[in-house]
C-alpha cells in the first residue's frame, strides 16, 4: 500500500500529466548535457532510482533506461517517484523498456500492485502513458540510449525518430525489437532470440555498421541482468547498465562527466 497515497486521484492526474509530457517528446529524444547519470532497469529498486536522483544536486541530469516496473516489490512506488522527479525537476528523462507495455504487467507484478492499491482502474491510463514514452535518447550526438538493442528493420536514427507513439504492445516491429533485442558475441547479423517471438540477438558486425552509419560512438542500454551491475560487449562500445535489486547481484549507475565514464557500483 502506498502510504502517501491519500488521494487516489493524485496518481490519475500524475499519469495524465506525464503522458502529455512524454507525448511532446519525440520518439528519439535529443539531449545535450555535460553531466549525465544513467540508470538501468530498476524494477522497483527505488533506492537506486533515488541514488541517481541525488546526482541532480550536483548538476547532473538523469536518464532512465526503462523497466521501472514489475519483478521487484513496490515497483509502483518506484514509478510514481520517478514520474514525480521528472515532473518537478524537468531534468529526468526516460526511455521505454519492454516492461512498459501491456505484455508483462499482468504477469510480473505491476498490475497486482495496482490492484492492491485499489487503482487498477487506472491500468489503461498507465498503458497509454507507457506508449507515449520515447524509444531512444541521443546524447551529445554521440551516444545512443535504447532499452534492448538495435533493430533488424530500422537501422537509422531516422527510423527511430519516426516510430509512432501510442503503440501499446508495441506492434511496430522495429519498436518491439528496440525494446527486446540483446547483443551477442560470436554471431553475425540477427538471430531469432530465445526471449520472445519477434526479438533478436545481434552480432558485432551489424552493430559496428550501425554505429558507423549513424556516426555514433556508443550504445548504452539495459534489459539484461548483469550481476556486476555494468558490463560491456563489442569492444566496449556497447554498455549494459543494470540497476535492480531482485536479481541478487550488484547494481550500476553510469555517470558521464564531460566525456569521462565513471561507474558507480552498489553491492
Amino acid at each position, binding site marked *: 500500500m502506498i502510504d502517501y497515497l491519500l488521494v487516489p486521484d493524485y496518481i490519475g492526474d500524475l499519469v495524465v500529466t506525464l503522458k502529455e509530457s512524454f507525448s511532446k517528446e519525440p520518439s528519439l529524444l535529443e539531449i545535450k548535457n555535460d553531466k549525465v547519470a544513467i540508470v538501468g532497469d530498476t524494477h522497483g529498486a527505488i533506492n537506486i532510482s533515488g541514488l541517481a536522483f541525488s546526482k541532480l544536486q550536483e548538476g547532473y541530469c538523469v536518464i532512465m533506461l526503462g523497466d521501472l516496473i514489475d519483478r521487484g516489490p513496490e515497483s509502483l512506488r518506484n514509478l510514481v517517484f520517478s514520474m514525480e522527479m521528472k515532473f518537478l525537476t524537468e531534468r529526468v528523462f526516460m526511455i521505454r523498456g519492454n516492461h512498459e507495455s501491456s505484455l508483462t504487467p499482468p504477469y510480473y507484478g505491476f498490475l497486482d500492485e495496482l490492484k492492491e492499491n485499489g487503482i487498477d482502474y487506472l491500468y489503461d491510463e498507465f498503458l497509454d502513458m507507457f506508449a507515449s514514452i520515447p524509444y531512444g535518447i541521443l546524447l551529445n550526438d554521440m551516444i545512443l540510449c535504447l532499452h534492448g538493442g538495435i533493430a533488424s528493420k530500422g537501422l537509422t536514427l531516422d527510423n527511430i525518430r519516426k516510430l509512432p507513439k501510442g503503440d501499446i504492445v508495441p506492434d511496430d516491429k522495429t519498436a518491439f525489437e528496440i525494446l527486446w533485442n540483446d547483443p551477442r*558475441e*560470436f*554471431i553475425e547479423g540477427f538471430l531469432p532470440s*530465445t526471449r520472445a517471438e519477434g526479438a533478436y540477438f545481434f552480432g558485432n*558486425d551489424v552493430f559496428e555498421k550501425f554505429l558507423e552509419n549513424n556516426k555514433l560512438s556508443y550504445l548504452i542500454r539495459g534489459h539484461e541482468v548483469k*550481476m*556486476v551491475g555494468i*558490463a560491456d*560487449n563489442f569492444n*566496449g562500445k556497447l554498455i549494459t547498465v543494470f540497476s535492480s535489486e531482485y536479481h541478487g547481484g550488484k547494481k550500476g549507475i553510469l555517470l558521464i562527466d564531460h566525456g569521462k565514464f565513471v561507474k558507480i557500483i552498489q553491492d
Partner: protein
Amino acid sequence: MWICNKCGTENDDSYDYCVVCGVEKNATPSAPPVTQEPPKVQKENVEASTQGPINNSSAQQQAPVTPSPSASSKILKIAIIQSPSPELVGRTLDLDFTIFKTISIGRNPENLLQMPDGSISRRHALIELKDDKYIIRDLQSTNGTYIFESGYFTKIEGERNINIGDVIKLGEGTVIRVIQ
C-alpha cells in the same frame, strides 16, 4: 531441482552441494571473470572499479561457408550464444573427440556437455565424429534440436551434418555455435 549460482549446473533437490563445483546451495552468485579493456575512444576514462563481461573475442567471425571442421584435430570449438545461465553466455568450450567419439549433450551432469536449461532433456542430443565428419543427432528430446538456416531454426530429426559456423538451438533457451 536447483540451479548452482556459481556454475549453472542443475542439481537434484536432495543435494546440498553442487555435484560439479561443490559449492553449497544458495551460495553468493559470483561475477563472471574479467577480460575486458576500457573503451578506446579518446575522451573517456573508465573507472576500473569492477569487472567486465565474459570472453569478448575480438576476432571477426568468418562467414559459414567452409565444410566440416578438420577431423584430424578432433577438437570442436563451440561458443555458447545463449543459455538461461548468464555465466555461460559468451563462453567457448572445446569438445575433444580424440578419446570419445560421441559427446552427449543434456541437462544431467553425466553428459560430457552439460547444459543447465530446464527445457533441455536429460539426454538431449549427441555430437558424433563419424567417418571424419561431425554430426549432431537429436535423441528424441522433448523440446527439440534446431539448426539455423535460411533465416529460421529448422528442427533436426535424427541426425544432421554440422559445419563450422552452424548455429544450433537446444530446447527453448540454449543456443550454441560451432566456431572451429
